[in-house]
C-alpha cells in the first residue's frame, strides 16, 4: 500500500514538468497551428537558464524567483523566434513552419553547448524543500509534494486567464476559428506573439522546475519532445485541461511500468496513446477540426502537368550523368550518391501521399524503418539472401502502411499526422526495447549485400536502378488515373465522392504505394550500411523526410529529390565544421525564409517558369 502511494506520488510529481511543457505546446498549436518541434529546446533552455539564475539567487524565495526568471527569459526567446522567423511564414503552406522550428532545434543545441559547455549540470536541490517526509511509512520528498501542488496551480491560472480575461477569450476564439478572429479586426500578430511568449515561458518554467529532480544536459530537448507530443495528442490538441489529465495519466502509467514491467517502460506510453486515439480519435478533450476543407499542405495554384519532350530529354541526361558517376567521381562520391538516391526515394514516397494525397505523416520513418528491419530480421534469423530481403522490405513497408492507414485514415489533418507519429513511436520503442529479437539499441549488424553486389560501384548501380525505377514509377502514378483520383480526393473530397471515387480506398491505396516505396528505401539503406538501428524508426528520421519534402518544395514532383540532395550534401559539407549544427540550422532557416515554396519552387520562379510541376 505504502509503495503504491509512493509510486503514485512520484508519478504525479513527474507529471508537473510534463504538463507545463505540453500545455505550452498545446496552446501554441491551438492558436497558431504551428507544430513547434523546438518546444523541447525551450524546455532545455529553461533548465539551463534556471541553473544559471540559481548560481546567484539563494534561499527558498530565490529558488522560485529563479524559476520564474528562467520562464520569462525563455518566453522572450520564444518571442524572438516568433517575430524573427515564424511570423514571416504564416502565409506559407501550413506546417511549413515546422521546418523552421527544426532549424531552431539545431541552433539552440549548439548555442547551449557554446554558452554552458558540454558537461551535464546537476540541478541544485530546492532550498527549504530538500528533505523527505514520511507518508504511509514511505519517504516522500518535500519537493515532489511542491511539484504536485504547482501543476494544478498553473492549470488554475491558465483556466482563469482563458475564461476570465479578454486575452483568454481571444485565444479561445482564435483556437476555434482564427480567420474569423482576424476578420473581426483583432490584431492577429499580437495575439500570436503573446501566445508564443506564454507557451515558451511555460516550457521554460517546466525546465527550471525539474532541476531539483534532475539537471540540465544537452539531451533534454529531444527527450521531452516525444512525451510532450503524446500528452498533447492524448489530451486533445489545444486543450489545456486535456494536457493536464494526459500528463498525469502518462506519468502514472510510467511509474507503475517501472515497477511491474521494468524493461518495457518506453512502449507503454505509446500503447496508451494508440488506445486512447482509437477510442477517441481527437484525444480525450479535443474537438474535430472545424475546417474539413483543404488539407494542411495547401492546394497548389496550378495542377501538375507531365513533362514536355525537352524536359524529358534533360531528365534522361541527368540519369545518364548518374550512370557514369562511377567513372568520373571518387569512391566517396558514390557513397554520397547512394545515400542521396535512398533518401530521395524515401522523401518521394512521403511526398506522394503528402502532396498528392494531402495526407501528412509525422511518422513516415515507420515505413522506412519497417522495411529496413524486415530485411535485417530476415537476414539475421533466416539467412535470407539479399535479393529476397530486398523484395521483403517493400512488402513489409506496404503491409505496415496498410495497417497504419487502416487505423489512421479515419482522421484528417494534424490528427492524422499525430496518429502516424504514435504508430512510428510504437514501432520505435518495440525495436528499442524488444532486445531479444531486434538487438535493441545495438541494432542488427552484419547485413551486407550478396557477393556480386558487395562492391561500392555495383551496389550504387543496384540502388540507382531500383531507387530510380521506383521514383519514376511514383511519377508515373502521379499522372495516372489513380493519381488524378488521389488529387481529386485531396482538393475536394465531396466532389470526388460524387464523381464515384471511393475516397478512403484511394487514400489507403496511396498509403500502401507510399509505404512500399519507403520500405524499399529502407531495404536499400540496410544493405548499404550493413546494419540497422532503432534510429531508422525514430522521430528524427521522420523529420528528415518532412524537411526534405518541404525544403525541396511540396508542390513539385522534383521537390523531394532536390530536398534529399541538398540536405544530404549540406549535412556532409557542414558536419566537418565545429559548430555544424548551428550552421545547418541557420541554413535551413535561411532557405525557409528565402524560399517558402521550397527550393524547387524558388528555382521555378527564378528561371521564369511560373508553373511548378
Amino acid at each position: 500500500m505504502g509503495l503504491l502511494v509512493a509510486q503514485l506520488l512520484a508519478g504525479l510529481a513527474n507529471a508537473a514538468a510534463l504538463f507545463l511543457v505540453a500545455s505550452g505546446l498545446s496552446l501554441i498549436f491551438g492558436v497558431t497551428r504551428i507544430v513547434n518541434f523546438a518546444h523541447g529546446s525551450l524546455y532545455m533552455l529553461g533548465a539551463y537558464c534556471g541553473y544559471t539564475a540559481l548560481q546567484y539567487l539563494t534561499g527558498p524565495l530565490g529558488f522560485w524567483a529563479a524559476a520564474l526568471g528562467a520562464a520569462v527569459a525563455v518566453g522572450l526567446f520564444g518571442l524572438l523566434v516568433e517575430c524573427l522567423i515564424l511570423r514571416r511564414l504564416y502565409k506559407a503552406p501550413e506546417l511549413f513552419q515546422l521546418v523552421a522550428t527544426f532549424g531552431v532545434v539545431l541552433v539552440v543545441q549548439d548555442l547551449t553547448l557554446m554558452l554552458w559547455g558540454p558537461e551535464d549540470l546537476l540541478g541544485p536541490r530546492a532550498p527549504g524543500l530538500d528533505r523527505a517526509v514520511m507518508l504511509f511509512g514511505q519517504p516522500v520528498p518535500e519537493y515532489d509534494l511542491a511539484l504536485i501542488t504547482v501543476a494544478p496551480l498553473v492549470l488554475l491560472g491558465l483556466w482563469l486567464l482563458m475564461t476570465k480575461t479578454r486575452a483568454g477569450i481571444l485565444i479561445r476564439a482564435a483556437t476555434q476559428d482564427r480567420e474569423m478572429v482576424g476578420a473581426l479586426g483583432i490584431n492577429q500578430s499580437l495575439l500570436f506573439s503573446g501566445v508564443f511568449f506564454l507557451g515558451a515561458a511555460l516550457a521554460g518554467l517546466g525546465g527550471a522546475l525539474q532541476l531539483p529532480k534532475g539537471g540540465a544536459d544537452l539531451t533534454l530537448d529531444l527527450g521531452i519532445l516525444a512525451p510532450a507530443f503524446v500528452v498533447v495528442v492524448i489530451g486533445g490538441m489545444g486543450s489545456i485541461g486535456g494536457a493536464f489529465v494526459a500528463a498525469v495519466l502518462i506519468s502514472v502509467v510510467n511509474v507503475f511500468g517501472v515497477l511491474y514491467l521494468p524493461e518495457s517502460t518506453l512502449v507503454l506510453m505509446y500503447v496508451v496513446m494508440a488506445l486512447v486515439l482509437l477510442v477517441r480519435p481527437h484525444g480525450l478533450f479535443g474537438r474535430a477540426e472545424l475546417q474539413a476543407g483543404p488539407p494542411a499542405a495547401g492546394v497548389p495554384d496550378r495542377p501538375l502537368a507531365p513533362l514536355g519532350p525537352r524536359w524529358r530529354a534533360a531528365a534522361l541526361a541527368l540519369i545518364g550523368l548518374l550512370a557514369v558517376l562511377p567513372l568520373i567521381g571518387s569512391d566517396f562520391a558514390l557513397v554520397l550518391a547512394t545515400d542521396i538516391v535512398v533518401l530521395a526515394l524515401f522523401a518521394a514516397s512521403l511526398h506522394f501521399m503528402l502532396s498528392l494525397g494531402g495526407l501528412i505523416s509525422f511518422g513516415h520513418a515507420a515505413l522506412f524503418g519497417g522495411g529496413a528491419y524486415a530485411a535485417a530480421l530476415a537476414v539475421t534469423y533466416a539467412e535470407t539472401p539479399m535479393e529476397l530481403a530486398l523484395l521483403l522490405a517493400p512488402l513489409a513497408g506496404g503491409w505496415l502502411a496498410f495497417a497504419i492507414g487502416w487505423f489512421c485514415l479515419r482522421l484528417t489533418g494534424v490528427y492524422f499526422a499525430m496518429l502516424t507519429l504514435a504508430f512510428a513511436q510504437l514501432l520505435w520503442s518495440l525495436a528499442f526495447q524488444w532486445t531479444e529479437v531486434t538487438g535493441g539499441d545495438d541494432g542488427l549488424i552484419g547485413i551486407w549485400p550478396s557477393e556480386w553486389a558487395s562492391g561500392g560501384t555495383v551496389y550504387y548501380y543496384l540502388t540507382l536502378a531500383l531507387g530510380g525505377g521506383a521514383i519514376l514509377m511514383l511519377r508515373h502514378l502521379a499522372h495516372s488515373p489513380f493519381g488524378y483520383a488521389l488529387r481529386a480526393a485531396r482538393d475536394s473530397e465531396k466532389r470526388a465522392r460524387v464523381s464515384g471515387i471511393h475516397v478512403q480506398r484511394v487514400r489507403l491505396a496511396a498509403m500502401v504505394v507510399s509505404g512500399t516505396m519507403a520500405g524499399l528505401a529502407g531495404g536499400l539503406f540496410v544493405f548499404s550500411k550493413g546494419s540497422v538501428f532503432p534510429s531508422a524508426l525514430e522521430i528524427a528520421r521522420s523529420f528528415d523526410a518532412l524537411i526534405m519534402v518541404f525544403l525541396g518544395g511540396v508542390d513539385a514532383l522534383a521537390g523531394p529529390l532536390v530536398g534529399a540532395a541538398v540536405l544530404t550534401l549540406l549535412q556532409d559539407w557542414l558536419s566537418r565544421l565545429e559548430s555544424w549544427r548551428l550552421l545547418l540550422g541557420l541554413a535551413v532557416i535561411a532557405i525557409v525564409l528565402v524560399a517558402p515554396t521550397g527550393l524547387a519552387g524558388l528555382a521555378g520562379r527564378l528561371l521564369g517558369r511560373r508553373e511548378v510541376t
Partner: protein
Amino acid sequence: MTIRTIFTGLALGAALLTAAIAAPSHAADSVKIGDMNSYTRLPAFTVPYKMGLDLAVEHINAKGGVLGGRMIEVVSRDDLGKPDEAVKIAEEMFSRDGVVLVSGNLFSHVGLALASYAKQKKKLYLASEPLADALVWEKGNRYTFRLRPSTYMQAAMLAEEAAKTGAKRWATIAPNYAYGKEAVAAFKQVLTKLVPDVEFVAEQWPALFKIDGAAEAQALAAANPEAIYNVTFGSDLAKFAREGSLRNLFDGKTMLGLLGGEPEYLDPLKDEAPEGWIVTGYPWYAIETPEHTAFKEAYEKRYGDYPRNGSLVGYNTMLSIAAAIEKAGSTETEALVEAFKGLKLATPVGEITYRAIDHQSTMGAFVGKTAVKDGKGIMVDWTYRDGADYLPSDDEVRALRPAE
C-alpha cells in the same frame, strides 16, 4: 517537374560536392589516422578523450613521428552517437581522406557497427572506448581491436569485491541496452561462481538517459536487497543517486557502481557524490607512478585542466596506434593487424598488451571506494587491477569467439 529545377538542384549539388571533394591536400608523407567520437552526443565524456589523443599526437610528432620521420595527422569527426553515421564517416575517411585505420568511439552499438564494417571491408578499427564484450568475443573479427577494459573485465573486478562484502541479497539497476545487459550478466556470472548462494531479488532496467529516478529507487527499495549493483551513468546516475539518497535507499546497504569512480561520472555530482560505493574509476589525483605523473603534468600544462578517464584512453589510443605502425614498419592494413596482435607498449598506467587471442588490450582499471572531500567526489583505498587478471581462460575465449 521542371528540368530547370533539376538542373538548379544539380548545379547546387555539384557545387557543394566540388567544395567537399576538394579538401585541402596535406604533406604527402604524413600518416593519416581517422578518429571519431560522440562529441556532440556526450561531450563530457568525449572531449577529454580528444584532448588526450591530441596530446599524444603532439608528443609523438615532437619525437619525430613514426616510420623514421613521418608525422601523424588525425582526421577527427563527430559520430553523433549514431552507428549508421559512424559507418558513413568511416567510408569517407578511408576513401576520401586516405586514413590508414579508424579509431575511437564511445557507445557500444557504434563500436559494434564499425567492427562489422571493418570485417566486411577489411579495414582496421581500433575501438577505444566502447565496452561491449561482443566486440572482441561473439562478434570479434580479424580487423577489430579494443583498448579499454571491457564490461566483463570491470564487472569481474567489482564482483570480486562484492564477494568479499558477504552480502547475499542483491539487486541490480542498469540501462536497458547492450552495455547494461552485459554488465549485469557478467557480474552475476562471476559473483555466482565466487559465492554460489547469492540471490538476485530485483532487476531494474531504465531506458538509457530516460531514467525515472524516483520510481526506480522505490522499486529497488521495495525488494529490500542487502546490496545494489548500479550500472547507470551520466545524467541517469545523478538522478538515481539524488532520488535514492532522498529516500534513504542507500542507508545500510552495500553499493557498487560500475565506472562510478571515473571523474566524468563523479565530478558533476559535486558534494552529492555517493559515499562508500565500491567503484571502478580513475583517481588521477593520487596515482604517483613516474609514468602517470609525467602524463598528468604534461596534460595539465597543455590544457590547464586535469585529465579524465577519457583523456587517458585517448592518450593510450594514439600511443597504441603509433606503436603498432612502428612494429609493422608499414601502414598496410594486413601488416598493422599482425602488428597489433601481441603488441606490447608502455602507457601512463603501465605496460599493456593487445592479446593475440581476442584482440583485447590488458589495460586495467582502478577499483576503490568513493568518498567526498572538499565538496567533491573522490576515490579512496584504491588499487590498480591489471586487465589480464580478469579475462576468461583461453579455452573459454576460443569458445566465445568465432574462428577466423
